[in-house]
């Protein structure tokens, strides 16, 4: 099974992961499952059961221009919090825990969209455009429908 998880919160550009999932609704093949979560952690590990290929979409703050899309793997991430809690098991720790429990899917791809602001209720323009770009490319990759272009995912730069 293929599962795409959008991580986010209601705050400004941080909701971009959820927005991409909204854009993908109804555009993918039936075996591709779409999920939104508000954080990584235990709940995300429960969503890994029976998944061969996992795609994560999350907001990213790495100093790149807003809207930049980075493609990462599970091993590219560094733990940022240095500890664990029920509130904040970060993405790297979640993958470490999944690995220790032997439930990490064979393929894990992470798409991070560089964000601009958390202050607004809405997505900023560059982030909204990037979400549309990423959704189009994922739809092309995970859909056999004739109207979705078969985009090469490798064209998304890191």
């Amino acid at each position, binding site marked *: 099974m293929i599962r795409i998880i959008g991580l986010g919160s209601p705050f400004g550009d941080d909701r971009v992961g959820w927005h991409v999932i909204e854009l993908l609704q109804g555009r993918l093949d039936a075996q591709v499952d779409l999920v939104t979560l508000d954080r990584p952690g235990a709940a995300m590990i429960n969503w890994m059961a029976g998944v061969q290929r996992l795609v994560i979409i999350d907001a990213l703050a790495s100093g790149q221009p807003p809207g930049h899309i980075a493609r990462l793997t599970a091993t590219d991430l560094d733990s940022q919090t240095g500890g664990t*809690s029920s*509130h*904040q098991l970060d993405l790297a720790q979640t993958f470490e*825990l999944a690995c*220790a*429990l032997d439930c990490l899917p064979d393929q894990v791809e992470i798409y991070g969209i560089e964000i601009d602001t958390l202050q607004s209720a809405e997505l900023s323009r560059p982030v909204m455009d990037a979400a549309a770009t990423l959704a189009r490319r994922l739809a092309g990759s995970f859909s056999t429908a004739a109207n979705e272009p078969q985009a090469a995912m490798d064209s998304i730069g890191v």
Partner: protein
Amino acid sequence: MTKRSVSIHVPALTRVEGEGSLRLRIEHGEIQELALDIFEPPRYFEKFLEGRRHHEVLDTVARICGICPIAYQMSAAQAIEQAFGLDPGPWVRDMRRVFYCGEWLQSHALHVHLLAAPDFLGFDSVVGMAARHPEVVRRGLRLQGLGNALIRLLGGRSVHPVGACVGGFFRAPDAAEVDDMLEQLRAALPDAHDLVLWAAALKLPQDEQAFTCVALRHDTDYPFEQGRIVSDDGLSVPIEQYEDHFIEEHRPHSTALFSLLHGAPYLVGPLARLNLNHDRLPAASLSLLRQTGMTFPSNNMFHSLLARTLEIHVAIVEAIRLLENYRRPVSPQVEVTPRAGIGCGATEAPRGLLWHRYELDDQGIVRAARIVPPTSQNQARIEADLRRSLRQFGLNRPDDKLRLRAETVIRNYDPCISCATHFLKIGVTRR
């Protein structure tokens, strides 16, 4: 002179429910200063709510905490319904208990496995623990997932659920959904049973201390969403009289308010609930508790862990009981007619008593709101516990041991700064 200072700093992080710090100064082998500072989002929400219409309140308060949104929704719904003179009836009451069971399950399962267990088994984190005890962690994740499924049944989604409203729920699950849920709950009972026995076998620190417990108490049921406010020193009052007995005071080192009962710190949360309500446990949970050989009330704060695991069992047993009698109602909500008034609501959040008070006008618009969350009620108690536990542990111990004990004591209360306590940084000055 020996001067030793300990400080914690927690940066504000997206998706972290709070922030806090502990300032500890030890001189001549004595604690000269101990101050726990917790940042409290609910205080801002009291102002956000002013001017909101009654039907906006539940969505707003759900945002206070990503871990226990249902608790905030249930206390708010109860308060607004009281102000409007509205009785939503037995179906809504039962389903609110089921909804609440889901929140206890997911919150307790996370705390026990991700936070507490690594402390007591000697691991830095759950990742290290998972390598040695993978089945324990898997069991915890299964129970957490079950809690989320139960929340989705009535809330529509497990993250910031949207299913509840003043007067009831927006939608009643159909029989097939309830049957599927019942099957999952029954299948999880052995996990919950084994978890309680596992927790009872852990070597927890022996740390007997005197403290006052406060919780709701219901005539017949283990308390989730209804009851009088009681304490083990004789208090028993309706929730509307909360402000007559409990005061909150500012302290210079904290943005949070410190709650006191008749001028003294007190405990809310799973251990307080169990200490005051062990005779209200469902028969199966009481039988399981007897099997452990543990007895309650207990004055060992570390028995909070056992209380949480037992409440996981209670939540599953209670949800099964209520869903086995499920009938789909004609309407999942009763009609709401606003009227001017004041209403109070009190329910048992996973972390303890959560008290709300709303003043609404005749249009159903909030004119004033007051929210007293469990973590602020426990703050004075945590400070008192730290002061005594660290002294008993030995103030001359190495800094990293002292820090770990302070973290363990704080985490044991499962405050909304749980994450913060992992950021403990100690700076030591010795002269």
